[in-house]
Every structure is written in C-alpha cells, then in structure tokens.
C-alpha cells in the first residue's frame, strides 16, 4: 500500500477519505478475525469503557468519509487502541506509515480472497507474525497447485 510522504498536502476531503480508507482496512481485519460484522454497539461499548462517547452519526462519518472530518485525537487514539489494537498514529496521523502488522494482515486477506478461501483456521504454537501469515499463504497456495 502506498503511504503518503509528509511533503504531500492533503485537502480536508482527502483527509476524510484517507481516514475512512484506514478505518475500512481495520474493520475488514477485525471482521475477519472475529467472524462477525463490527457493529456500532460493539464500538460504543469498547469506547465507553474508556470514558469516550461516540454518536452513531460520527461513527458513520468516520467509516464513510462523509460529514465533517473527525479530528478528536483522544477519540481516534481510543478507537485505534481499544477497538482495533493498532498504534494510535495510524488514525491520528494520516501521513503516518501503515504499521507492519496491519500491512501484513491486509496482504494476507487479499491473498486469501484471491485463492477463494472462505474460512480459515490454523493451529499455531507461536505468535501470529507477518512471517507466519506468509507461511500460511504459501502452504495453501502450494496445496492448491497439487489439486490442479
């Protein structure tokens, strides 16, 4: 995924779109991890346990890149950390690089979709690292070649 350099100036509209794009990526990863859709009540609960309030309208702005740009740093930080478990800068600094873990998960999901995998589970004795995701992709890809 291309990351914007600091020299590129983003308009308000582009900022809204980039934030929505990043939110979309995180929601996609969250949903594939949890095998369910991420609903507003879940987000609301995760945030309120951290003392942060969020309206459904504002959530919609964030997800769809519409309405006014959400710039509340505390809100974005809590969403990143409490809902998605990613470094806050991914949402608070729209010029920041994509964290390696997020990048690896995005690529992994893309690969699984290309291989037309609907559902997947692994018995893993170690941590889920980018290397492990690459190993999984390789095993599935090779095993499918054997089926042809």
């Amino acid at each position: 995924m291309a990351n914007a350099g600091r020299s590129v100036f983003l308009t308000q509209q582009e900022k809204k779109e980039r934030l929505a794009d990043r939110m979309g990526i995180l929601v996609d990863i969250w949903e594939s991890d949890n095998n369910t859709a991420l609903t507003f009540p879940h987000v609301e609960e995760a945030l309120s346990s951290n003392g942060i309030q969020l309206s459904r309208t504002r959530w919609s702005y964030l997800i769809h890149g519409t309405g006014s740009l959400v710039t509340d740093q505390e809100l974005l930080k809590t969403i990143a950390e409490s809902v998605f478990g990613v470094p806050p800068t991914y949402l608070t600094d729209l010029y920041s690089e994509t964290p390696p873990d997020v990048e690896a998960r995005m690529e992994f999901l893309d690969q699984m979709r290309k291989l037309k995998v609907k559902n997947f589970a692994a018995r893993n004795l170690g941590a889920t690292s980018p290397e492990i995701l690459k190993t999984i992709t390789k095993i599935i890809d090779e095993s499918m070649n054997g089926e042809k």
Partner: protein
Amino acid sequence: MVLPSVEEKVRELCGVGTTSMTEVVEHLVAICQKPINLVEHDGEWGSLTALKVEFEDRINVLFPPQNSLHYKLHCIYHELGHIYLESLDLASPEISQSLLKETQNAISVSCRHIEDDPVERWVEAFAFMMSKKTRAHSSSVLDPFLC
C-alpha cells in the same frame, strides 16, 4: 458466544464408545454437506501444526508430515473441531453473522495462539478427547487414514 460442553458435543457426534477418524470425517461431511479432504503437505510450517481451509465447494485440512502418529491425529482433530464447532452456529442473535456472510468477499480468519482463545481451547479439548477415543478403537480393521 457461549461454548457448549465438549463432552456433550463429542457424544452427539460419535456416541460414547470408540471411534475412528474415518467415521468422524464421514459424520462431519454429512453435517457440512461438503467434502472434507485430509491432505499431508510437505514444506516449511514454522510454528504451525495444521490448517483448515474452507472453499465454496470443499474443506481441506492440511498438516505436515509428523514422526508421531498420535500428534498428527491430535493436530487434525483440532481442525476437525473447528469445522464441528462452526457447524453448530453458536453466534448469539444480536451478532450479525448473516450480515457478514452477505458481505461481498467476507472471509473468516482464525490464527490465534492455542492457549489464548476460548475457541482454541475448546477445539484443543475436542482434539484430546477424540484422539483418546480413536486410540481406543478396537476394530481389527485399520483406519484407512492411519495406514
């Protein structure tokens, strides 16, 4: 999601006596309505011990060659446990399972450490129980999988 008793679900799947992996796979194929292929795959596995990959028309359980037949049995049963648990449709109504299924390109990915997650612990318990029942299988006819 409230997970059911492993003992109860094992009993429902293959009764109280012994069983074979062939029998278990046959039961699961009937439940899932799609073929389940057990495929030994050579190559680099890292810390992975088995994978379950579901496609539109089939489910593949992939596993590395293992020296220990018992350990291989356990790892495969772990993945069969995932297949069984998912077939039980345990999601609570307020969770929009159907919403996700209708989402284009929806994909479910589970790659958690086996000690960190209740679902992983459930399928580990399932694998222990099923391996025990299979090892106790007294049939003189060898399980084709184990040959």
